[in-house]
């Protein structure tokens, strides 16, 4: 590869080569990652979804809790803004107003009808429910909405009339937050336990390894379930949220701890560590300046890879009713709603959050994979 390059020595080439040799590890990883098209697409999708989660209150026109329910449109189908119908064309997209009726004509059941003569035009930056933008700035402006007298539901509504679009956006954020907290807790545990085992070695290592292996052998979902079953029913949704994250973190650490330990054990005996020791460097200096940088990229990759598992575990727990429950909007809690035959037959739009879940996990997996390939300096030569 380099032989070919030197054959065409030119000004630009020389510069590129110099940049290559003086690049930091981070720059090299980024350069390799950029070359991976699938991973880049996944990364953009991921960024998009994170932003959607972050700005969920701004993007969702109605309060995702029961306060924002649309009592005139329960189990309502998604409404797509239109530009034109039999009454003519409109440059401004619109939807129809819905009316609810219960009388002898409808056999005393609530029946929702579309009033095709009454158009509700889509408007931007409308004022609706109060929220705090990014958790700080109190405001009530939302990206879009419709004229007074009706509501727009891009993804339809659920059984109590809550807007599924808004719920999905909020759910992405909750699931990401649970995952982040879980990954963070397991990361700290892994760093401490794996670090202690790897740095001290000897019998401490053996004992810690035994415990780590034992925890790794126990199937994690049953263990999650056992821990989640401790949660009293009267806990508030915030407490449940933290408890679930802590459980995820408490069980997720062994794999990462093992890797950190193995890495420390091999790196500790490397020549450059010995050289630093001979130069009189203190052990804290060696850990900070030599050992930690040697595997930060691996840790980041590992965290990225363990993320979808966390999100998935949370979803599974919530799905079976042991995790987050309905007032909280998590992807698992939303998916719980699809487990009825009624939904498949009549309310297929309940499945929309599932698409987001699959996309989120896929994005994480592809980005994690791309990062792993990019962080591996031999990935080019292997293929």
């Amino acid at each position, binding site marked *: 590869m380099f032989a070919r390059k030197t054959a065409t020595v030119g000004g630009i080439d020389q510069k590129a080569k110099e940049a290559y040799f003086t690049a930091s590890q981070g720059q090299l990883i980024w350069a390799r990652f950029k070359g991976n098209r699938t991973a880049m697409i996944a990364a953009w999708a991921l960024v998009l979804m994170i932003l959607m989660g972050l700005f969920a209150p701004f993007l969702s026109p109605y309060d995702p809790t029961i306060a924002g329910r649309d009592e005139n449109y329960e189990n309502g189908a998604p409404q797509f803004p239109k530009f034109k119908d039999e009454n003519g064309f409109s440059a401004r997209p619109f939807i129809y107003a819905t009316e609810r009726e219960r009388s002898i004509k409808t056999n005393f059941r609530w029946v929702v009808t579309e009033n095709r003569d009454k158009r509700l035009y889509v408007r931007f930056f409308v004022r609706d429910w109060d929220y705090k933008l990014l958790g700080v700035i109190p405001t009530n402006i939302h990206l879009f909405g419709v004229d007074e007298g009706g509501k727009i539901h891009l993804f339809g509504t659920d059984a109590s009339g809550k807007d599924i679009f808004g719920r999905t956006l909020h759910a992405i954020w909750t699931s990401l937050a649970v995952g982040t907290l879980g990954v963070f807790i397991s990361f700290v545990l892994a760093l401490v336990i794996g670090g202690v085992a790897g740095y001290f070695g000897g019998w401490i290592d053996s004992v810690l390894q035994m415990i780590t292996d034992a925890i790794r*052998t*126990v*199937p994690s*979902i*049953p263990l999650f379930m056992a821990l989640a079953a*401790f949660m*009293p029913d009267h806990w508030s949704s915030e407490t449940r949220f933290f408890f679930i994250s802590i459980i995820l973190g408490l069980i997720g650490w062994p794999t990462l701890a093992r890797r950190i330990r193995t890495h420390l054990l091999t790196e500790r005996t490397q020549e450059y560590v010995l050289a630093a020791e001979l130069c009189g460097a203190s052990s804290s200096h060696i850990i900070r300046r030599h050992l930690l940088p040697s595997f930060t990229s691996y840790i980041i990759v590992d965290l990225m890879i363990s993320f979808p598992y966390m999100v998935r575990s949370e979803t599974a727990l919530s799905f079976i009713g042991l995790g987050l429950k309905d007032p909280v909007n998590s992807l698992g809690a939303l998916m719980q709603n699809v487990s009825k*035959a009624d*939904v498949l037959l009549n309310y297929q739009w309940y499945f929309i959050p599932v698409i987001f879940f699959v996309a989120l996990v896929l994005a994480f997996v592809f980005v994690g994979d791309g990062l792993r390939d990019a962080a591996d300096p031999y990935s080019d030569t292997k293929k």
Partner: protein
Amino acid sequence: MAQFAQFALTRAFMALVTLLTVSLIVFTLMELVPGTCAERYLAFKNTQGSQITIADIAAEERRLGLDRPFPERWGKWVYNVFVHGEFGDSCILRLNINQLLADKFWISLGICMAALILSYAIAVPIGIISASSNNPVTNNSLRFVSYLGLALPNFLLALIIMLFSTVVFGDSLTGLFSKEYRDAAWSWAKFGDFLSRAWLPVFILGWSATAFALQTVRALMLDEIGKLYVTAAAARGVSGTKLLWRYPARHSLGPVINSLGFDLNRIFNELPIVALILTLTEAGALLFESLARSNDQQLAGAIIFLLTASIVALNFATDILLALIDPRVRRGMMG
């Protein structure tokens, strides 16, 4: 032979130590569940109309041995489990756990093992073919499918299949037995009925397991296929499937066998959830029941322990198998 016996013994000892550690974890968990067994018994009596005092609870605790210190109770539990294979009584159902679990646990294990076998029966040939082919379309689509195994969780798949069959065939395919066999004793007819229904959980559990197995097999094959001994064999004139199966496939089989235990672990993870959706009447569903509904710590502990024990047993078996087919493993373990 003596070397092999020594290897097997060390492995068995290590498996035993793991099991003991697991039993400690499980037992501690059981202890952490709010409320003791004695309180449960008496709470039940209370609902039947009898008056309960603190003294009654204390007496009941003494009767059940709950007033003893933690290590002693753990020791007793471990002794009963390891020596007699006895898990005691369930607090809530007031039934012997062994009787309660007997059939159900074996059914669960059978379903999970079948899923494991299915996943490798698919993954090994396809993984080998995809590793040796240079067709980017095949490779990318395989990669995508195996990622989908992670992204499309089993419970969703189960749900979709179930709802679909309800709509199309009018049968939800749930449960493990037809109505007429549900309470019947085991017979060939019942077994046949069981098989006609068990394929669905096996398939669903095998779904993501296959995806993972496919990735493992492919990655291992890719590592081996570029090595010099394969080139050398090709140079000697060995080619085609014979080359693949006799050289790189044999070498990549070792790590695959080694990872079987973790694959079983992954399948067990999905078991309670799939069981819940398909309303299977086996250990996974019982575990969910005991944890989510009734807080039956004795039963839950027993099931988690049994699941883990079967993983440990499988790990032990694969270690021995690996040592039998690969002498390098034996020597590596010794040295």
